[in-house]
């Protein structure tokens, strides 16, 4: 069976395991897969089983240390901006950006800086901080209609992307602030429902 597409699929699945696991089980795992397939077991069943096993193996060894703190940070961020968790639902309009995102409505120009800061404070990126400083300096009006102001590595496995779109172009009222996390769940934050004065006034970079 060497060199067949089935073999290659199985090898790819096995490469998803950590090196430590492959060093211990790799040779035998290939042999078992070949025997099972020659017994008539569908190759996809074998590949699927190895992929699930690899995911489990990596979840056990890594995300407990890395993903959970990231999820915790997101929840803390959501609670900091005074948004009830009940609002973290699938109320994102269909026209919103694709992928999983947090959409925050800026309720007024007066509170835009504070509200946007609250969303951006979820991130730790320099570019998000840069975006905030430009906003604070009154340069927000010159931003393009959809401006990517930051992509942060919130955690090794979670990228946090912040988009700001200004609608209408010359005012912040009604703007959307989108935080996109690839692989995350689509949700929305409606800051307009949350009085700005209840939002934290922490400044980025402080």
């Amino acid at each position: 069976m060497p060199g067949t597409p089935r073999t290659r699929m199985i090898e790819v699945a096995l490469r998803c395991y950590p090196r430590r696991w492959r060093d211990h089980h790799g040779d035998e795992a290939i042999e078992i897969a070949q025997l099972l397939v020659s017994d008539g077991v569908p190759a996809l069943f074998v590949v699927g089983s190895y992929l699930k096993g690899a995911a489990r193996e990596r979840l056990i060894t890594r995300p407990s240390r890395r993903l959970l703190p990231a999820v915790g940070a997101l929840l803390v961020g959501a609670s900091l901006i005074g948004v009830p968790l009940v609002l973290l639902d699938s109320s994102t309009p269909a026209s919103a950006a694709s992928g999983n995102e947090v959409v925050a409505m800026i309720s007024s120009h007066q509170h835009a800086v504070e509200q946007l800061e609250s969303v951006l404070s979820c991130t730790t990126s320099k570019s998000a901080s840069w975006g905030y400083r430009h906003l604070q300096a009154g340069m927000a009006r010159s931003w393009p209609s959809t401006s990517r102001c930051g992509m942060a590595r919130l955690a090794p496995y979670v990228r946090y992307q912040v988009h700001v779109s200004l609608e209408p172009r010359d005012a912040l009222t009604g703007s959307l602030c989108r935080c996109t996390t690839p692989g995350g769940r689509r949700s929305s934050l409606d800051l307009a429902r949350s009085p700005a004065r209840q939002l934290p006034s922490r400044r980025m970079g402080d």
Partner: protein
Amino acid sequence: MAATGREPHGGYEQDVLRRAGDASVLILTSLADGPKHGYALLLDIKEFAGLRLGPGTLYGALDRLEGLGLIESLPAEDRRHPYRITSAGAIALRHHLDSLERVSAVGRLRLGLGGV
């Protein structure tokens, strides 16, 4: 009883396998009559339980059981690693089967099928 493995005094809780998963129980049952390597385990389990374990599931359970000290790896034969049930594994399996038997007896009684 929680499946926390060894107790402070070195013994084992009554049913350490309660939350270990079905695959773990099937593997221990298969190893109860002698050491086997991965493929032989899959064939044996298919024969006595009518269940085809996926190889990924098998290795996950083997690593978990080895970590708990319920099985041990024997020197490799060619590319194959045989596994053997440890005495702790045999005790844990016996406790688990006793527990299943109690549940089975109650279930049968309540279904009007008579006690065991």
